[in-house]
């Protein structure tokens, strides 16, 4: 645990250095989406469950920007550390175990998920799209989806041998999760079988909880979403270690 925290500290030192450029860049994209789609497309869209389109979209941007941040960290950045910089090998020559290495990566993925969630939350707050003080719980909640996205991405990173294969993950896993999570349209507009399938999409749960907290529509059903995310995290918990061990220990 001590070593995993040491690894997290390493990531935070690097992160702190690029925090501003990183943040501005990452805040820009959701802002563009919100302006273009929220205001532009929103003009043609009638209210969704009593919300204006931009109101509907804004919390989804919080959840999805967080997902992208955690995903990129645990795909491209982790891959570079694993294969090119040999950072993990150096850690393992120290007192770290593969489990410590995974824990360090996932903890940092969670940090990114939370930090970029907060950044976008501030952006939408500035745009007047935060209605409830329940939103203050969002940073804490984002720990759950952060763990799930990081574990998923790191598992895939451990499986593949060439950096080009990461594109497949982005195109075939992350992008579909993004498009079919109730970020851009409510899932009730999808066919019934897809509505069932969407429960397997961690981003869906994240979006639902963020939206409920942003608009203050809090109910017991949120626990189901949180429990689903916790379940995913538990199921995936050992997977990255299994594959990284094969890569790191000969």
């Amino acid at each position, binding site marked *: 645990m001590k070593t995993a925290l*040491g690894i997290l500290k*390493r990531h935070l030192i690097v992160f702190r250095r690029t925090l501003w450029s990183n943040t501005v860049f990452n805040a820009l994209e959701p802002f563009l989406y919100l302006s273009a789609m929220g205001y532009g497309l929103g003009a043609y869209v009638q209210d969704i469950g009593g919300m204006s389109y931009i109101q509907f979209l804004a919390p989804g941007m919080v959840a999805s920007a967080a997902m992208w941040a955690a995903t990129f960290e645990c795909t491209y950045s982790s891959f570079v550390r694993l294969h090119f*910089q*040999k950072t993990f090998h150096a850690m*393992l020559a*120290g*007192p770290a*175990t593969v489990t410590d290495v995974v824990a360090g990566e996932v903890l940092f993925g969670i940090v990114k998920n939370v930090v970029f969630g907060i950044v976008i939350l501030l952006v939408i707050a500035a745009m007047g799209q935060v209605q409830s003080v329940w939103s203050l719980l969002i940073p804490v909640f984002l720990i759950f989806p952060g763990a799930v996205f990081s574990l998923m991405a790191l598992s895939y990173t451990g499986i593949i041998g060439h950096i080009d294969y990461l594109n497949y993950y982005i195109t075939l896993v992350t992008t579909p999760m993004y498009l079919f999570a109730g970020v851009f349209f409510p899932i009730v507009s999808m066919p019934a079988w897809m509505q069932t399938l969407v429960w397997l999409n961690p981003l869906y749960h994240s979006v639902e909880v963020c939206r409920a907290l942003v608009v203050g529509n809090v109910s017991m059903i949120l626990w189901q979403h949180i429990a689903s995310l916790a379940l995913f995290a538990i199921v995936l918990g050992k997977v990255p270690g299994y594959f990284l061990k094969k890569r790191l*220990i000969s």
Partner: protein
Amino acid sequence: MSCVIKAENLGKSYGKFRALKGISFTINKGECFGFLGHNGAGKSTTMRMIYGLSTVDEGYLEVMGERIDPITPPRIKQIFGIVPQEDNLDPDLSVIENLEVYGGYFGISSKDARTYGKELLEFMGLADKVNVNVEMLSGGAKRRLVIARALINKPQVIILDEPTTGLDPQARRLVWQKLRRLKEDGVTMLLTTHYMEEAAQICDRIVIMNDGLILAVGSPEELVRQYVLPFVIEVRVSMEMLPSGINEKIEAIGGKAEYIVDSLFIFTKDGKRLWDKLNEIGLDHHVCYLRPANLEDVFLKLTGRRDEE
């Protein structure tokens, strides 16, 4: 406990390829133990098994009285200092941050790691590079930083896989000096190297490895005494230019001919006497070179004919 590391019939296979074919050795506390061997002999493979980047799956390995099965646990790695063959410094960090972060893996506070880290940098001749990004360092400076990093946790056992490869002669001596001082402090050291002088200077005992096996073990002096005669005359002409029947002629004047990597070495007990007789057997003095035999001769003699087999 006087025995720090003990290997018995230690083997390692990568798929069908047997990189280590069963080696046995013991390393005592406070000793500097060297591994010599050609490229691919299995030195790094042995090191990696000891420091926990490879699993032990053939034979027996014991570290600090504990059996390694299948991999070295963190509590043992906690007292190790590792200099891997390939520099794996953290390019996202500055020189001092590399030490700070690495110390952090051992649970050392940033403040302590920085204080001690600066001392180590001073010693390694990197004092003016404290805040430089590691990408900006020269190859030799990187190597020295890797060595400094291995010392940040004040290890009891240091494993150095070709620590001085790429260092200039001054820097190499600097490292030797540091290693000698550590040895005086009772630190146990494992070292691989391709520099015979380095092995002769700092190792108490050496093994010579060849194709995954240990061929010889002993102190540098013992090995020289055991495997070669005290003097050697190198004959620097190509094989075709040698007089015919040279081997018998050498024998007749009290020498022993050895062919190492296509050149003739004449080993002898009495260098001066043989030197005076070289003309008699048709060898010109100015293509010959007389010197005391050394570890390199032992190494070449034991492993030199590898390619011809």
